[in-house]
């Protein structure tokens, strides 16, 4: 009998994921963050989006490390749902090479299940692969803010068309931002798009329009794919 087969744990796909807040569920395959993968956040709301993605897992008990994003707003993170007692910020050394960044991220992955980071501008492909292997081995989730460079990201999320509500000319105060978040990537056969409040009036993420629009129009009579059915059910349920 093959030892590897004998000892391999029979985990379901669901056990190899980390939860996300409800409004983000329709954007992700299986409605959760896949462990051992990298997720890229880009566009206008990349910082808020990355924090929102990490919030569900931290609520469930995971620790969040923020590597090389020194400007992260702690209060905003709290409002997006991150329990601050499980938030740690790590700054790389000043004379930063991409290898130093990779070593640091590798060490961080030993203790943290969710890591938010920026990828250095000139990252070697070999170094990127090393980081990726580490993410996979530790079954963590790496969330990148901005351009992921040569890092192969399974899911790419882009926030666009931001509209701020609440301020007029000289009165009111910011109440929330509507953005369209699009997710695409290897694990998502058709890009998905959701209108979100990011942040909403209480600082948390919320759904604006509960209907998911596949970007490509469906042909009439085309049966729903199982993925879409599940999303339709998930959104109908809440």
């Amino acid at each position, binding site marked *: *009998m093959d*030892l590897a087969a*004998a*000892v391999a*744990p029979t985990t379901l796909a669901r056990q190899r994921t980390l939860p996300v807040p409800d409004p983000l569920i329709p954007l992700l395959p299986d409605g959760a963050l896949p462990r051992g993968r990298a997720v890229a956040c880009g566009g*206008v*709301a*990349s*910082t*808020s989006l990355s*924090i929102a993605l990490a919030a569900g897992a931290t609520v469930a008990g*995971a*620790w969040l490390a923020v590597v090389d994003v*020194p*400007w*992260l*707003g*702690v*209060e*905003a*993170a709290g*409002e*997006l749902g991150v329990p*601050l*007692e*499980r*938030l*740690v*910020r*790590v*700054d*790389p*050394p000043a004379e930063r090479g991409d290898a130093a960044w990779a*070593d*640091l991220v590798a*060490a961080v992955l*030993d*203790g*943290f*299940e969710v890591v938010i980071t920026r990828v250095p501008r000139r990252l070697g492909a070999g170094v990127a692969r090393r980081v990726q292997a580490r993410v996979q081995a530790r079954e963590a989730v790496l969330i990148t803010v901005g351009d992921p460079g040569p890092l192969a990201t399974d899911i790419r999320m882009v926030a666009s*068309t*931001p*509209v*701020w509500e609440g*301020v*007029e*000319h*000289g*009165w*009111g*105060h*910011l*109440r*929330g*931002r509507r953005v369209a978040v699009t997710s695409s990537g290897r694990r998502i056969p058709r890009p998905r798009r959701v209108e979100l409040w990011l*942040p*909403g*009036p*209480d*600082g948390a993420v919320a759904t604006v329009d509960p209907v998911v629009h596949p970007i490509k129009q469906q042909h009439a009579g085309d049966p729903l794919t199982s993925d879409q059915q599940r999303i339709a059910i998930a959104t109908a349920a809440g």
Partner: protein
Amino acid sequence: MWCPDWPIVAAGIRAEVPAMVLHANRVVARSPAAADAGVAVGQRRRTAQQACPDAELLVHDHDRDARAFERVVRAVGRFAPRLEVVEPGWLCLGARGPSRYFGGDDALARQLLDAVTAAGDVAASRAGIGVGIADGRFASAVAAWRGVRSPLVVAPGTSPAFLAPLPVAWLGRVGGVDPELVGLFARLGLARLGELAGLSDGELLARFGPPGRHAHRLARGDDERPPGGAEPPPERCSQQVFDDPVGQLDPLVFTAKHLADQLVAALSAEGRVCTRLVVIAETDHGERSERAWYRAAGMSAPAMVERVRWQLDSWMASGDVSAGVVLVRLVPDEVRGDDGDQLRLWGGPSAADERAARAVARLSGMVGDRAVLVPTWRGGRLPADRYGWVPASTTDLTDADDTAQRLRPRLDGAGAVGPWPGALPAPSPAVVPATGQPAELADADGQPVRVSGRGELSAAPATLTIAERPPQAVTGWAGPWPLDEGWWEPRRHRRLARFQVVTADGAAHLVLVEHGTWWVVASYG
């Protein structure tokens, strides 16, 4: 038998060397030299270093402790075959049989102490080894702790009297009772175990639930079961037979994880937890390692795996193993109803917390204390003031009280509390740089917008220029919200006005003007 400073012995520290073993910034063990200097178990690293600045700092390594403890376990195994290891440095055995053989409890205790001292290389580190004999696990552990210099034997039947005058803190220290519950007993005026034992079982159950009843039983000196008792093993045991012998530790531990998961899932489906686990491993040549492990609070799957690792690691390192392992079996020897007094009930640290705390310690060593930071609440009316960052190495990340105090001080704290009237409402900016960026807010004619002392604007803002970037048209703005802070103290006095500005590219910024200069202090990224 209990050696409170076992980690020091395992690390091979000599008595005259001051040293302490740290976990999550707290001292878990110290050498006699450090103890003389005033280092105590449970102290913070900072305090301990103040007391003893030249002490050697060691990281807590359970595997090292367990490997070193194996020698002691073997030596004690000659007295009593049925012994159980609670943790490295602490083991239990049923004394009734062996003490008859050796001629009484006192003789047995002395024999044990000699054997342990000889086997454990303990003499060099002069660490105390306690041997205590009493009724039940809890009373004997207390006796062992108090019997560090000379063995302490509590006569049969007198354990309740022995425990009665002792403080309730023992419940937390050796009984595995949640420290918060123990603290609550003390606050309620139940300072001594005897006072707790005097209450009725029903009262404690009604008020504190199963953990209260458990604490009450311990205080009365009854244990749930005698150590090594002949509890018929449940039908359920979890095992793996390898067709190809396995010579390495890691695949075995991985298999054990799988087995432990199955076992815990099966037991918890029946609402039970395992308190005493027997781990059996056999090699191809018939060598066998069998050991019982005990944990009063019940074992989770990771706790089982840890014990399997300790046992197999020291067994394989002992040189008795001449072939690969063909069998690993986990037998739940004692199970009890899971009445909910698991670690998490009162919010104790989880495995993820411990792992993160260890990683933080490593990272602090890699990039320096000042580069590994955790947020702390400071209070204020500007985003950068409200939360600050402090080095993670100065805090205890797994201590819930400490963390709560750091993130939201209670109302009795000094200065940094209160509702902060005049702070901006949610949502808060997600991008808060340490220092603001210079900016320029101009009106439609290109003239800088000025704010008068009474909060009136010279003109409506039309463009926002941040640092050297091209100007952006302003599509919405709100403010000014004037702020006059610290006027009672000239050096801290700040007078400024805040604005929220939305620009045509969809970005929103928190902009302030102070002494006629504009700054972007945060962005809603």
